[in-house]
């Protein structure tokens, strides 16, 4: 075979994957970018070029800013907590304890359940007066509270659901990584007289860094991607206090039918996520030790 046919061969092997990727990932991104510079077609009125008008509209849109702020709080609330919990649970079920596999299964269950079902169950937990949470606080003699219906607690309630849902999933990755750590390191540490905390800080945690990076990237993406529970539990209310960015994109696109503005919002969301991912890799790459 000459060089040319080798090339052809290579490209042909690549083709199926490349076609799918272009069709469902790259083309939609480019099309979205393109449409974000046009007005929304209405009935018989075709779209016209409006340049950056859709982006300018965003600056004056209070709901967009609120959704963005909510989303940042949602990320701050879910990411560190779910990762810390995942690590804790992984270390716990990695030890030699009774009923270990049952415990692992229990921790992983929330991940298996569909988010819509989960949200409906939690909706009942939060129901004022006779919901599970209210029954517990009522038993303790605390005053009743409308958890999802008040501005101060609605977003926190959604964060709790997301943490509960995600921690088990991340735990699986940590568990797998923990089992990759050679046991002789443990023995060496014991001989040198390293305490458990010291051993974790100096050996376990650094060795888990590649997993932490992977989990972190996923957690960040999920913080901006998960909105099923918003749809079921609050629909963005009360008064937009639980509206997340992607939910707002959905509202603009499929409730208001303003597809051009929705495209512009999508681009901002995409750009934000891309920047975050790049920053994470750049920052952690230097601190990550791959075995």
């Amino acid at each position, binding site marked *: 075979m000459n060089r040319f046919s080798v090339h052809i061969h290579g490209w042909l092997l690549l083709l199926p994957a490349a076609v799918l990727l272009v069709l469902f990932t790259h083309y939609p991104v480019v099309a979205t970018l393109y449409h974000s510079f046009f007005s929304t077609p209405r009935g018989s009125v075709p779209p016209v070029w409006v340049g950056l008008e859709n982006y300018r509209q965003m600056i004056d849109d209070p709901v967009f800013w609120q959704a963005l702020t909510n989303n940042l709080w949602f990320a701050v609330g879910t990411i560190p907590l779910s990762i810390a919990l995942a690590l804790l649970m992984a270390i716990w079920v990695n030890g030699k304890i009774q009923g270990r596999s049952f415990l692992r299964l229990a921790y992983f269950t929330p991940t298996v359940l569909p988010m819509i079902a989960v949200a409906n169950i939690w909706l009942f937990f939060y*129901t004022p*007066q006779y919901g599970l949470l209210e029954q517990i606080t009522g038993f303790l*003699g*605390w*005053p009743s509270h409308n958890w999802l219906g008040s501005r101060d607690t609605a977003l926190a309630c959604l964060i709790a659901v997301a943490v509960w849902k995600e921690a088990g999933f991340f735990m699986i990755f940590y568990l797998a990584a923990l089992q990759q750590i050679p046991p002789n390191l443990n023995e060496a540490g014991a001989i040198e007289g390293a305490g458990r905390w010291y051993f974790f800080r100096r050996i376990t945690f650094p060795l888990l860094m590649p997993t932490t990076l992977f989990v972190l990237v996923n957690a960040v993406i999920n913080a901006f991607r998960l909105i099923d529970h918003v749809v079921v539990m609050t*629909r963005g209310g009360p008064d937009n206090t639980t509206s997340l960015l992607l939910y707002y994109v959905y509202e603009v696109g499929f409730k208001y039918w303003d597809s051009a503005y929705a495209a512009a919002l999508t681009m901002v969301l995409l750009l934000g996520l891309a920047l975050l991912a790049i920053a994470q890799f750049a920052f952690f790459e230097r601190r990550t030790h791959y075995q």
Partner: protein
Amino acid sequence: MLNPIKKALVAIALIAAGIAQAQTTEISFYYPVAVGGPITKFIDGFVADFQKENPGIKVNSIYSGTYQESLVKALTAHKSGTPPVTSVLLSTDMYTLIDDDAIVPFDGLASSAEDQAWLNSFYPAFMANSRTGGKTWGIPFQRSTIVLYWNKELFKEAGLDPNRPPANWKEMAEYAQKLTKRDANNTTQWGVQIPSTGFPYWLFQGLTTPNGVELMNAAGTETYFDNPAVIEALKYWVDLSRAQKVHPPGVVEWGTTPKDFFEKKVAMIVTTTGNLSNIKANAKFDFGVAMLPASKRRGSPTGGGNFYLFKKSTPQQQQAAFKFIKWITSPERAAQWGIDTGYVAVRPDAWNTPVMKKYIEGFPPAAVARDQLQYAVAELSTHENQRVTKALNDGLQAALTGAKTPEQAMKDAQAEAARILRPYKR
């Protein structure tokens, strides 16, 4: 090889099949399900009966999810070129569908005098959301109004006449005060509950209408959210919750409101007539159904779904769908549909059918919604409908959670609505 006779027979059979094919008109029909009960079974039954009577028409009934999902599916299909021929969608989606050039009015198809009479056979209150600019764009099908449900047992316990619901706002507040039970630091039973998630604007119209004010003009280009009577109505709602503390605080979930009523956590609830079958089946106590309490007058908005005809379909298909819609809204079927689902039968003559008369005799509360229709007004619907109602919903939730005063909330909502509707005011 086939012999010549066989060949001829085959040819004839093929031609005959071709003719039959040409005579059958296929129409697709999207319908949402928004209340409990085996709704799909009822619809399939109707469709089967219709096809038996009209062999030339094949109706493909497609269950399309909630109202919101149905609209998304129908409009997306319209934009890609193949919408359903007919669909049941919210009556308030009328302006959205017109603005997208997705539907045709029924007037062009209703050519005969009989058809014209049919167009005028529905309750005028339902037609308020089905007509604009002198044309009929929707045909009422699964329509509702808001009513008050009350728990007769709890009324008795509180020393109230169990057969006398509150007739006006003053009485509702007084009754609610007597019906609210508190222990050391908790309220164990609330007097009254008006849900405020999902579509609070609709339930709010159950307060503004009795207060003698409408929220928009008939052309759907103007709103009146900052009218003093509107602010007064919101103040009444907020005061029940925040000042008198006889209504649960904050935003109250629409979905769990019937359950709160079953659990006796609340003595009176305000919700759709569409919940009647559900409450009848699940309330383990004697309950009553009443018209909404009056302030300056009686009143409630209508709600629910209409039939629409989509533009991107052939004239034959539109004719066939027209026939189907006429058939399914006949008095007998409107009555049967109302009994099966709890929706309000959409035309006066449906209430004079023997089945309906018998049903009401056995279950008088079913007639309350009908009696209220004479006071009913159109549900809030404008151009850019979802955006405008969202502005009002946000304002209502802000006031109910105490983030804004009723005055401020309604002024902000009005300013936002006016901004959205500016392009339509010519």
